[in-house]
């Protein structure tokens, strides 16, 4: 229904795009099943409605689960090994901490440990992101944990069309995918995706072409990079913006080609800086573009602490556009 309504609109938000992707994937392949807490329609079709209409249409292929992430993520691993394409929803990214074992010791490793006899083509969807005052245990960005686990892919879309095309690709990918949805961005409006069209994993998108500096972001930060790039343009600074889309594997071809041209790079993410994704990108850039780099790669990230509750602290916790701009000017010094 929600989906129906949306198709009429010229624009669509991320919630609706994700809902379409799930409907289209389940329509296309009977092996696609979906489960998680509250995902079936009697329970509301997801606490924010991402899975709305699925169980009404696909019956027991869509199930609300008990509060047992270890149990049902493990069930996703088992079903995937048996040839299904499970899409498990672990409501919030922080809750992966109660099912890390099934994700990192099993889903990620089963293909390797079985010598390729079995593999786990599953997707684990989750929301996160600061902004709603949910405090220290509900809005962390933990993608670095999963990127550091060989065998997993990590996908983090920044807009409705990408959310649709990337989720579709993730569901039909042969490897386990950690699919991170940015909760505060769910209602962001954007161009409609073309139904059925997938966006390949592992390929970044040049969100804005530029020649002076390369801004690298993903999920929320890709949009912040674009916004800052527009502001900088008014000051005569021509920034290129790369939306990674997939954080593991990183699209190094696109990143290296861009930075080789601009000679300057700033990596931006909502996760805390230390030991984060930005460190890996920075390290690789310095290793590969030592001669081309005109300034050290800068990193912009959130404060080194748990996510605070008080609104003013929560706002101060996440990097600001001013932080991004300052980092850019730092590379231009």
């Amino acid at each position, binding site marked *: 229904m929600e989906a129906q309504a949306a198709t009429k609109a010229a624009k669509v938000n991320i919630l609706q795009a994700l809902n379409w992707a799930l409907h289209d994937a389940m329509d296309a392949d009977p092996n696609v099943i979906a489960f998680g807490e509250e995902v079936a329609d009697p329970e509301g079709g997801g606490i924010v409605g991402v899975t709305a209409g699925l169980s009404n249409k696909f019956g027991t292929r869509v199930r609300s689960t008990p509060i047992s*992430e270890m149990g049902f993520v493990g069930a996703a691993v088992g079903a995937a090994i048996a040839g299904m394409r499970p899409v498990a929803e672990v409501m919030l990214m922080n809750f992966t901490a109660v099912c890390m074992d099934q994700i990192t010791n099993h889903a990620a490793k089963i293909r390797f440990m079985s010598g390729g006899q079995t593999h786990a083509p599953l997707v684990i969807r989750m929301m996160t992101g600061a902004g709603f005052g949910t405090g220290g245990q509900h809005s962390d960005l933990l993608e670095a944990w999963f990127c550091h686990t060989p065998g997993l892919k990590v996908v983090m879309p920044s807009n409705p069309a990408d959310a649709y095309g990337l989720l579709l690709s993730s569901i039909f990918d042969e490897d386990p995918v950690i699919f991170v949805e940015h909760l505060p961005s769910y209602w962001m409006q954007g161009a409609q995706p073309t139904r059925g069209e997938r966006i390949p994993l592992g390929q970044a998108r040049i969100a804005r072409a530029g020649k002076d500096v390369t801004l690298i972001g993903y999920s929320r930060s890709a949009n912040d990079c674009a916004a800052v790039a527009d502001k900088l343009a008014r000051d005569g600074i021509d920034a290129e913006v790369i939306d990674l889309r997939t954080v593991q594997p990183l699209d190094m071809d696109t990143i290296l080609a861009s930075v080789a041209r601009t000679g300057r790079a700033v990596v931006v993410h909502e996760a805390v800086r230390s030991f984060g994704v930005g460190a890996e990108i920075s390290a690789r850039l310095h290793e590969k573009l030592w001669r081309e780099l005109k300034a050290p790669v800068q990193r912009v990230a959130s404060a080194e602490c748990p996510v605070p509750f*008080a609104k003013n602290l929560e706002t101060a916790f996440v990097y600001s556009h001013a932080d991004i701009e300052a980092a850019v000017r730092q590379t231009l010094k």
Partner: protein
Amino acid sequence: MSPALPDRGTLTAIYRKMALIKFNDERIVRELKAGRLVTPYYSPRGQEAIPAAISMHLQDSDYITTIYRCIHDLLAKGLPARLLWAEIAGRVTGTCKGKGGTMHLTHPETGCMVTTGIVGASMPIACGLALASQVRGDGRVTVANFGDGASNIGAFHESLNLAAVWKLPVVFVCQNNLYAEHTPLRTGTSVERIADRAASYSIPGVQVDGNDPVAMYHAAGEAVERARRGGGPTLLEARTFRFNGHVLGDPGAYIPKEEYQAAQAQDPVPKFRQWLLDQKQAEAAQLDALDAELLREVDEAVAFAMSSAPPEPAELQRDVYATATA
């Protein structure tokens, strides 16, 4: 065998705590709807009798752990309303300096040790608090609060087994309000009576009407007493209902109308108030005065919170480690 009634003083004390919780909750809801307060809020309205009755058996030095749905447990244990209000309003005068918020209210002086937003996590931590008491022999009891949905997560199983093999002084209180977010008990829970799960650990399991303050008082008394004298853990299932859905704003579409109305007709606070009067355990004037006093307390707490300043940005560097980070 229905044991003797608690004395008048105790009965009024229980009512006082129930009213304290109800008035604070209603005021929070009002402030939220008016937009003067902004936070996700998990209202315990309807579950007041449980912690109010339990708290009669606890000292300040006893410990409790609770969950995001917590103000009833915390106020009953003694966490000052003004500190609670300042915290959920995100002020530096809050019990956690505004850094923890609604889901992490903490106040060690009154034994409010941990409030968690992770389902199930309150139980292993409660085992640890009880372990400390056992090793020190300090005679404290720990009460671990959690919901019906939480009885399906691994931490529940590991905690009850650990508490049982070590005979820890802990009382596991499952506040069974029949729903886990939008999921009805039956959909996620494979057993009729959650109390029956105690058998898996060879510990007592007791199901009690959590909306009956007297029954709750007796059941909690036995469990706390057992823990205190070294008799080990108990699983208490307190049946109840939540009137404001999972999180404030949840229309509760998944709750059958009749079920909801039937529950509201049995609202434990007015019902207990009426019972006290009917049983001549209290006079109307006395309860009116008590209510008025509590409402004044709430006003003061709100005023204190709203007139307080937010934490300064430097708080982001404090309390991450023992020594402030750069």
